[in-house]
């Protein structure tokens, strides 16, 4: 097996490389899903894996998501580390019973005797002009399911590091890949891939003093842009990239908000019942007396994901974030 001297630069490439490196290091890592073998996946993330490791290691399954995850559970019971690909966010729904009733509970059910080190990769979120069912942000479902870790990278380096960490984890991980960042590029050398990031640590992407934008996944670049734009209005915004929703890094988030005294949570998922409620509530619990204004949320509307031609009105954009920042009761102090 010769190491091909690829130079990944997109998130898609970093993810593929993470899978490849994990498979090369650990023969118990198996990839399965619809079209992941010969085709390399509809997003080409698994491109080349079947060729390099054989179809038994990277398997085109029949078209049945509950079957994919259910058989992965059995494989994990026997000591393998399956990485399953759900083709799109909404097509993970048929697998929910397996996920909720088994994947999240098997370790607990068996008092630790039967952990399930499964990674469920879900290309998720909108902004790619996809037709119905191809742009859902389903993280609220995963967050509400005990026993799962829920991870969402926002950068090329994190995509690699977090996916490696997810595969190495003895817990099941739902790995949310922001579709519209697949082709985002960054200086990143596959030959010296970033140290594997531990799951559960948020990171301050941009320090600031006026207010904190709390975000993750596809909304991170939007928040970075908003923070840039905010300078013109005299606001110096801090951007916290959560990287994982479960475990949730209360420490990093609370430290930031205590410092800035104001916060806006930003995500694509619907606002009502979405992750923002949990985040705002826990930030408030921890930082109440430091807050100059309630923690606000900028999120997708509480509607089914709209058709491509209207999605830009739905997605949280720079203007809507700045409008929220403007509502942070600046007259009130600091």
């Amino acid at each position, binding site marked *: 097996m010769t190491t091909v001297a690829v130079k990944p630069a997109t998130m898609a490439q970093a993810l593929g490389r993470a899978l490849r490196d994990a498979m090369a290091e650990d023969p118990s890592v198996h990839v399965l899903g619809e079209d992941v073998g010969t085709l390399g996946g509809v997003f080409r993330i698994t491109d080349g894996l079947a060729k390099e490791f054989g179809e038994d290691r990277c398997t085109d399954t029949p078209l049945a998501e509950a079957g994919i995850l259910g058989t992965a559970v059995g494989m994990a019971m026997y000591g393998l580390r399956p990485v399953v690909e759900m083709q799109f966010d909404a097509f993970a729904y048929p697998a929910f019973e397996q996920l909720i009733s088994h994947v999240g509970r098997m370790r607990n059910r068996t008092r630790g005797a039967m952990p399930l080190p499964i990674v469920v990769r879900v290309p998720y979120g909108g902004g790619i002009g996809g037709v119905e069912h191809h742009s859902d942000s389903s993280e609220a479902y995963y967050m509400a399911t005990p026993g799962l870790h829920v991870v969402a990278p926002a950068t090329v380096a994190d995509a690699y590091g977090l996916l490696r960490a997810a595969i190495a984890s003895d817990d099941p991980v739902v790995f949310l890949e922001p579709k519209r960042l697949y082709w985002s590029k960054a200086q990143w050398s596959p030959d010296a891939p970033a140290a594997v990031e531990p799951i559960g640590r948020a990171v301050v992407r941009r320090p600031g003093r006026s207010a904190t934008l709390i975000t993750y996944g596809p909304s991170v670049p939007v928040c970075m842009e908003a923070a840039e734009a905010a300078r013109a209005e005299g606001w110096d915004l801090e951007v916290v990239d959560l990287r994982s929703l479960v475990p949730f890094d209360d420490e990093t988030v609370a430290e930031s908000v205590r410092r800035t005294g104001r916060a806006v949570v930003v995500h694509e998922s619907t606002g009502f019942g979405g992750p923002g409620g949990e985040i705002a509530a826990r930030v408030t619990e921890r930082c109440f007396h430091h807050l100059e204004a309630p923690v606000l949320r900028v999120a997708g509307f*509480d*509607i089914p994901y*709209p058709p491509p031609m209207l999605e830009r009105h739905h997605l949280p954009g720079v203007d809507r974030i700045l409008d929220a920042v403007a509502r942070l009761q600046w007259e009130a102090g600091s």
Partner: protein
Amino acid sequence: MTVQELPGASYRPTPPPAWRPRTDPAPLLPDPEPYRVLGTDAADRLDPDLMLRLYAELVRGRRYNAQATALTKQGRLAVYPSTVGQEASEVAAALVLQEQDWLFPSYRDTLAAVARGLDPVQALTLLRGDWHTGYDPHEHRIAPLCTPLATQLPHAVGLAHAARLKGDDVVALAMVGDGGTSEGDFHEALNFAAVWQAPVVFFVQNNGFAISVPLAKQTAAPSLAHKAVGYGMPGRLVDGNDAAAVHEVLSDAIRRARSGGGPTLVEAITYRMEAHTNADDATRYRGDGEVEAWREHDPILLLERELTGRGLLDEDGIRAAKEAAETMAARLRERMNADPVLDPMDLFAHVYAEQTTQLREQAEMLRAELDADAASDAVSDAEGER
């Protein structure tokens, strides 16, 4: 296996009453070879008018496919899953239905919807991206094109069952791909249909692939039609490129459903000649040779040969069909080249019967944003004019 008389045993060899096979499996099993009409003796029985109608629709369908793919290149459609090679099945599925019947198309089956009479622009709305469904399903009795695979099948069962409970003469025809048969919803739908004896026909287009996954990785069954016996309904295998055969087999199944005979599973063997969608690269998973082998078995070619061989179609007829198709395509192109007029406020219009306070607030926010944008556009326009 003979029964042994044991000393003193009153033991009865037949098990108690709960075991009773209710159906004779033999008539439920499909024939080993797909049923075919064109090029066989059965073609003698054909209704020339119907065949010419089918022919015109196939030609139109082929042209429709070409036009829709062209529209993706021009950025007028977000995506298009072609049915080139599958026109016989698509068209026959539409033509076998009576007006009051319902069609449940999968995401690929816009052609079936168009052949049933739906305006192609409305059929393509989902794929253009201005809304999820471009038509009122009740108008033509066509359910919304269904993207989550196989999930439309229980809908068809429920609708057919409801119609029967109401005493209405309605049959539902539900379309699904070979890949879709692997989903749990396929299984549950067929089982409910058989238990309820619902007037529904399941029509599987086995086009050889689910995106890149060939049938051999999808199932080990002798045929997909063999699944029927496991539900207690007949399974039928038909050459999906033989428009006459598909029409006949589906018509039989619908007649059976309509007369209270219950559901049927029909598998049409066909082939997806083009890539999964315009976004797919089929060369990654199949060779040209395979595709070429199917060209000889083209649905239009098959019907054309039969009709010309019988003197029912001549060059003029072929030309007329092509011209009609061109007219349709030109009109479609023209209409699709107009930008659809969209109102962003529609986002909130049909989430609930009555808008919630919460959505009203969000709608107000969007309205304010749009007004602000319009105002600043007006300012820049005004500035631009100076």
